[in-house]
């Protein structure tokens, strides 16, 4: 077993490991996880899915946002062991082959990032927001995206990007989330 920052004491991880089954970006995986491993650490440290970022590890920044059973969730505050049977989509799972997700395209089109650290969380969060169907106006987008902090202050362009995709979606209801 590879070293991971979620391992507090040598050996204890293996003794306490609990088997779980997760579908991650469409791939089903059987994993043994120590109960204290967060979904975020599991993704980043063990599965090499480093697109999901760790900004604060306290639920305060949204950089770790992923979709669990279609709902946006902070991966840093979810213990992986509690998710047995869940379907998880990370930023790595949004594109269809070489075709970027409409939100990814819109973020590029609108220059909705600078350093890019918050971007995977912003895009996963925006995908969750679209699935929820609660945001119609720009104010609503801003309020319902407030769980994603951008230290580079790209908020106007992030809001533009999401607004753009939401508009398209109204005229094209069949678009996948």
């Amino acid at each position, binding site marked *: 077993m590879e070293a991971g920052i979620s391992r507090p004491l040598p050996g204890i991880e293996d003794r306490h490991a609990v088997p779980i089954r997760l579908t991650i970006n469409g791939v089903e995986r059987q994993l043994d996880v120590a109960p204290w491993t967060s979904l975020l650490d599991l993704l980043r440290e063990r599965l090499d899915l480093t697109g999901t970022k760790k900004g604060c590890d306290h639920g305060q920044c949204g950089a770790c946002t992923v979709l669990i059973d279609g709902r*946006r969730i902070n991966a840093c505050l979810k213990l992986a062991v509690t998710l047995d049977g869940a379907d998880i989509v990370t930023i790595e799972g949004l594109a269809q082959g070489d075709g970027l997700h409409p939100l990814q395209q819109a973020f590029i089109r609108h220059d909705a990032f600078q350093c890019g650290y918050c971007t995977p969380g912003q895009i996963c969060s925006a995908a*969750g927001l679209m699935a929820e169907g609660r945001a119609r106006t720009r*104010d609503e987008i801003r309020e319902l995206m407030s769980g994603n902090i951008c230290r580079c202050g790209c908020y106007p362009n992030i809001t533009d990007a999401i607004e753009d995709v939401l508009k398209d979606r109204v005229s094209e209801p069949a678009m996948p989330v």
Partner: protein
Amino acid sequence: MRPFSYQRPTGIAEALRDASGGGVRFLAGGTNLVDLMRADIERPTAVIDINRLPLGEIEETASGGLRIGALVPNSDLAYDSRVEVRFPLLSSALLAGASAQLRNAATTGGNLLQRTRCYYFYDLATPCNKRDPGSGCAAKSGLTRIHAILGASPHCIAVHPSDMAVALAALEAEVLTTGPSGDRRIGIADFHRLPGDTPQVDTNLEPGELITAIELPAEGFADHYSYLKLRDRLSYAFALVSVAAALRLEDDVVAEARIALGGVAHKPWRNPEAERLLVGRPAGRDGFDAAARVLLEGSEGQGANDFKIPLARRAIVRALEQAAAATPQSPTDKRIR
């Protein structure tokens, strides 16, 4: 994070059995417990994951109210059409709290039991009577911007951070529990405690006792309510002061009033005397001012939070005006009208 054993019971009896030892914590959404365990403030030796228990439904009660299962996520509760239509004060308070993704994980039971956001409670390098009983209170001589103005004690000046609980206090909800000594029904006013000389105890829940549901009585004050939350930024921040205001009017005269405050005390703050004083009077500024004065009787600043007293007074009046005019504070458009 310290190691712990993990159980995932599927039945309530099994969960209570698992919880009968010491050092046990129930895990719901995890948005507070996991954070506190990582910070080494909560140190359970056994974690009981209650997410597979059958506590996820919202049901009608025989008396016309709603019974909300302890595991209903905050977002589902806020957007439930029965809650939106009949208890909009609760929807509004929920949507004023945390962020969309946190609300997706946070549960009804966990929200009530979230712990204070006092900086010193989180800082292991400083004394805190709530975290480490008898060690002292660093907040009293520290930064007090977010601290209590009502009901504090020499041992603790922390406030309870929940928005949902403030709305539940105004709606006079009841907390349904089950535990080693059987089933209980606890009025929300008796659920959280003032700190006194045991600030480590936030609520009157017993060790190993499980919240199963929250019950709302039929009266939801849907025509005249407002949840006004004032904070350091417009979203995704805890309340400095919040007000849940609810009125029942008959020809512009107050027939019934409820006012609960958040961000100012160790529990949602109510004073029925302030509410009674409004009854029979026109729904207007004079009465609202008088009610605010009574509600804030005995308030005391800690220095850096002295501003909360006039802020609370004005917020109470404004929230009551919004309620009376049927123009509740929008959770999206933060302009205060």
